């Protein structure tokens, strides 16, 4: 038996671990605990044993657990005495960050500036340590930044409704839905040129500007769905490895006949996320690099980039980051396309290419001088060996082949809504490990 995520206290700390604000829900944690936590973090940082720092830590003397996340120099720390649901608590903390961002855009400075409103929010999102209601959009309907209100605000029906993510009575002149299919490609290639892992995460981002309480139905070229509905699988269909839905989607219905039906929240949200292994797809952009050290004081990088997609498509905003030794100086670069800049503070070369067609191959050479007395000799600290990373976008294309077949909108008033669909593939964690030659 476990009790659901029970958090006793929440502390928000700044980057120097100074307390910004805290909220105590259950009053069963000694105030000394926060100091113990801070001391513990500092201690581990001083001892350079960061591997001791885990997001969930037990304090055996105080018999409490610390569960925390960091976000842009902020610590959000929950302390609990019970065997709480850690996954829920951590998810909640991340959700809290989302809410704060929805309210204040930037975070760290805003915490103190918006003390009162944050307390109001904390009062609403958690009660007695149980997460309650974390829909930023609905929250902002009844907890507002403007303070002068003569009429006391009422809790919107949505808070306790079955449809907790959408308020009633929304009106638009023109009813439209914009649907972006965004796929990001994660790839790890080892120094020998073998693909270690390649997977694609897709997101269906919806921006819904619809009146009333619209019923929506989405059709994809999902193989299982087409099969379940006995449709012919003409054309390309895809099999997704895993799918996650926004809470507005009726999961039981999906499990039943793979129909994606929902009442959307107002505005933008991620309707669905999916994962698909792309181990069999050739990486869209392939990078090969070799490092030569002709002499102790010289190092030479040769980078070859190939684009493996149809030639009518373009990769835009390509940015390749090539890590170089920290003590390299006087670069000599030449390249066939784009511009290369040496960024010593990042210990890297940045190669930017505005756009490149599919099926191309481009080269870049860079030579550096190294200080004559190099740290190459033994006993030097082990050098970090960061990989080559790459960023790019390919519009009008999904690497998985996912397509939206239809998006139907039904509302009592019977209006016609226009769906707009866009596709784009981007790089996610796209890394090529590099043999640095030392």
């Amino acid at each position: 038996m476990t009790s659901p995520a029970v958090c006793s206290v929440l502390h928000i700390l700044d980057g120097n671990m100074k307390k910004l604000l805290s909220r105590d829900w259950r009053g069963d944690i000694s105030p000394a605990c926060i100091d113990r936590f801070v001391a513990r973090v500092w201690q581990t940082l001083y001892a350079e044993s960061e591997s001791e720092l885990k997001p969930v830590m037990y304090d055996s003397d105080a018999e409490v657990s610390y569960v925390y996340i960091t976000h842009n120099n902020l610590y959000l720390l929950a302390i609990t005495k019970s065997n709480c649901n850690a996954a829920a608590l951590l998810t909640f903390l991340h959700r809290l960050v989302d809410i704060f961002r929805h309210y204040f855009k930037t975070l760290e400075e805003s915490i103190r500036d918006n003390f009162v409103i944050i307390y109001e929010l904390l009062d609403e999102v958690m009660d007695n340590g149980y997460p309650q209601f974390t829909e930023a959009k609905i929250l902002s309907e009844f907890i507002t930044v403007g303070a002068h209100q003569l009429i006391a605000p009422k809790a919107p029906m949505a808070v306790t409704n079955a449809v907790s993510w959408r308020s009633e009575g929304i009106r638009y002149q023109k009813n439209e839905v914009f649907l972006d299919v965004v796929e990001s490609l994660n790839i790890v290639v080892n120094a020998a040129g073998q693909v270690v892992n390649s997977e694609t995460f897709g997101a269906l981002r919806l921006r819904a500007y619809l009146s009333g309480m619209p019923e929506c139905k989405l059709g994809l070229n999902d193989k299982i769905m087409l099969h379940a509905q006995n449709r012919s699988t003409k054309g390309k269909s895809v099999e997704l490895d895993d799918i996650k839905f926004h809470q507005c989607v009726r999961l039981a219905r999906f499990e039943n006949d793979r129909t994606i039906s929902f009442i959307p929240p107002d505005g933008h949200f991620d309707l669905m996320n999916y994962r698909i292994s792309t181990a069999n797809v050739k990486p869209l952009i392939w990078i090969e690099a070799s490092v030569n050290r002709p002499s102790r004081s010289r190092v030479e990088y040769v980078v070859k980039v190939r684009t493996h997609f149809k030639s009518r498509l373009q990769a835009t905003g390509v940015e390749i980051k090539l890590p170089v030794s920290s003590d390299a100086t006087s670069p000599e670069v030449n390249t066939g396309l784009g511009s290369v800049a040496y960024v010593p503070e990042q210990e890297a070369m940045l190669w930017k290419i505005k756009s490149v067609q599919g099926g191309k191959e481009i080269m870049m050479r860079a030579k550096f001088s190294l200080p004559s007395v190099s740290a190459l000799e033994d006993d030097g600290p082990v050098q970090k060996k960061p990989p080559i990373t790459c960023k790019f976008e390919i519009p009008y294309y999904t690497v998985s082949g996912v397509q939206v077949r239809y998006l139907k909108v039904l509302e009592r008033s019977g209006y016609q809504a226009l769906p707009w669909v866009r596709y784009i593939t981007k790089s996610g964690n796209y890394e090529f490990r590099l043999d640095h030659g030392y």
Partner: protein
Amino acid sequence: MTSRSDARYFTSQKKGEVAEWRDEIHDPDRDKRKNAVKKAVIAAMTVGKDVSMLFTDVVNCGQTDSVELKKLVYLYLINYAKTQPDLAILAVNTFVKDSQDPNPLIRALAVRTMGCIRVSKIIEYLCDPLHKALLDPYVRKTAAICVAKLYDAGPEMVTEHGFVDHLRELLDDSNPMVVANSVAALAEIREKSCSPDSTVGLDSKVVHKLLAALNECTEWGQVFILDTLSSYVSQGDQGAERVIERVLPRLQHANCAVVLSAVKVIVVQLEDLRDPARVQQLVRKLAPSLVTLLSAEAEIQYVALRNINLIIQKYPDILKSEVKVFFCKYNDPIFVKQEKIETILATERNIDQVLLEFKEYSKEVDVEFVKKAVQAIGRCAISIEQAAERCISVLLELIETKVNYVVQESIVVIKHIFRRYPNQYEGIIECLCDSLDTLDEPEAKSSMIWIIGEYAERIDNAEELLEAFLDTFLEETPEVQLQLLTSTVKLFLKKPATGPQILIQNVLHQATIETDNPDLRDRAFVYWRLLSSDPESAKDVVLAMKPTIRDDLTNSPQTELLQGFLRQLSTLSSIYHKLPPLFVPHDPLRTRLLYGQSGETKNTGLDGSLTNLHENQEIVSGKKANPDPLVDLMDGTNLKEEKLGNSKNADTIQLADPVTNEFRLFYPSESTLLSADKGAGLEISGVIMRGEDNLPCYSLKLTNHTSVHIDHFQFQFNKNSFMLAPCSQLQYSKVAPNESFRCLLRLSFSGSSSEKTASPWLQVAVKSSHQCGEVFYFNDRVPLESVLLPEGRLEYEKFVQLWNCATDEYVAQCQMSELLTPEAVIRAFDSLNVFACSPASFSESDNSSVYLSAKAPGPHEEQWILVKITFTSTVGYLEISSRSFIKGYADMIYNSLRRLLLGL
């Protein structure tokens, strides 16, 4: 705009500002009032300034129609009500008024805040508004949680006002949010209450309701419901299938917590599925969701990885083809990388790929991470024989890098590989010896020394190598010293030349004379005597073949413990890989873990958990004498005896398990009750212990020394102080000639009682087919802790009252291990129905005394037994005084406690 930039309030530190604020609080202008309150609240809550003197002024502001101001006042109240309980009463009016406000937001706010103020005076006023709130549809969700708060402050009030029933009714509510919060509140009350099952009986009807609410709930509500469901024991195959079917769609939820809780429910229910193919199919369905969790935020990934680690121990194939997802990305935080390494399961098929990755990781910067990578390579070698050679060559490559910590860790790992595959890879020893001088970590050193000793005959200069270490013998850690000693002996036995002879004399001299370490000295003496008396048998001893080590890849806990962890998926317990009682203070779950489910878990303490005693039950009722489950029981008892024996022989009584720092109780051991000659060939031994459902039972072993079958056993008890009587018989059990039979005889408190004084003795009569139904008699001493009633809990005040008028007393002192702390005692005894009285008051007032109460079964009203254990300031002594109203109990409880704690 007033709320812009609250930051300026943080800096004001002027003198006399409090007085200034007070004036402002009374200002007719609303905004000024609000600002003043805001300053006071911020000062109190964040800057840490004491502004309690403004209490009355601020509370008076609460009577306002400005919601924002009201919220501020409430914040202030929560902060100070504890220190100013008398003043807090002033706020009651505001609360009561607000809880009837037409605006549900304000009603909810009032109820919520009132619940947070844990001042008993306020709590009294809470009940009325709470009743009303529970009737009101909009405020119900807040009120439901408030019941849990109220339970925390005054459980009896919750019972008195029937709030638990209210909550149970709310499970039927039309509003899913209300259902979710009621579930959460009930779960909390259930966890805290001493009689858990009476609060939320998770019967199939309730479960059905919860499953139906799942579809409608908010994400957090779904988490509450799923967590509650995970403790539901479904009614067999079909019940489990039904639950799984309804929970399965949750795997598609975007909220990771929902997914993981759903995984937990399914994994728990899988236990009840009979069809292995169906289990496989469902397990496969879990895999994609688990993989996707690894793309969530890093902290969630960490939780997921710790959980996957448990799941793959139970279902090793689940992510067999997905090993790639555990490969580290450059930017993964270090805590994720470490867990990923631990989770990578190498198989024959993927070993090359995996090794390549591990090699890559061992070039990283973080030392701990690198060490883990090297260890992981070693694990591959040990678990996959075909890959051992490849692993070794990778390790050799690593040694060539000459990076100090990599070399050392590699040597430790290679030693393990040698122990797994003796005499196969000693060709590489030469390469290892090259890095001898660089070793400075004890573990690496002793590993290297072990290798030299083990393969002394193949290393030409083994003597020289050991000699180098011997120079610094006295400075080494004990670990290295012991290894040096043994390896030198091995060397001498393998090469009895002059060189080694000088060495051995040197090392024996140093180890026996120049060191204070008794372990080292004793071992050196043993070797010395062995060598001087009989070198040949010394060879047999020292150079004996050692069993090879086995694959400890999964270092898997026993299945029962693992099952316990799987029930805890997504909770802190599953992250620490510790069961909750080990880290949750005063966890009543402990009772159930230790005792509730099974008789035999008694002996194994916390490690064994949650066994289902299904089979044993069958034996008891005598329907089936299936030999298999008996083995379990026997093992359990043997273990118990062994443990007891060991600790008695040891020099010092070790009460605490060094790992968990939990001490173990000494349960009574089985004793012979009826010897074979008195029983004409029938031997009976046994002990009374607490069985399933918390009732006592007789664990018996019947041995038949005659030449015929014995059956139709019947047991009868004489009148006894505890009114014990057997509630079943063993008439269908049969014991074959020269065999033993183990069984549990269930007991109840339905017998008749003996005279006024209490006595532990129980007279038993046995009749069986044996000797034409002749009746045999024996006496047994009932261990008091096995028969104490669960309703023995007392409030502190009541305890004191009873203590002062008790009529029987017993006081004694005894010696004790210092590891025994009051908290540990309380926790351990809780499971025996010996309860601490208000732990809060003992920790504040008298740090060294523990007050315990218990209730014995019997015909009289006053069966109370009261105990005070004082931990005296001289470490190692404690004083036990016990009192009761019936002569005999005080004495008895003392004996029980002494035995439990000391094993005497």
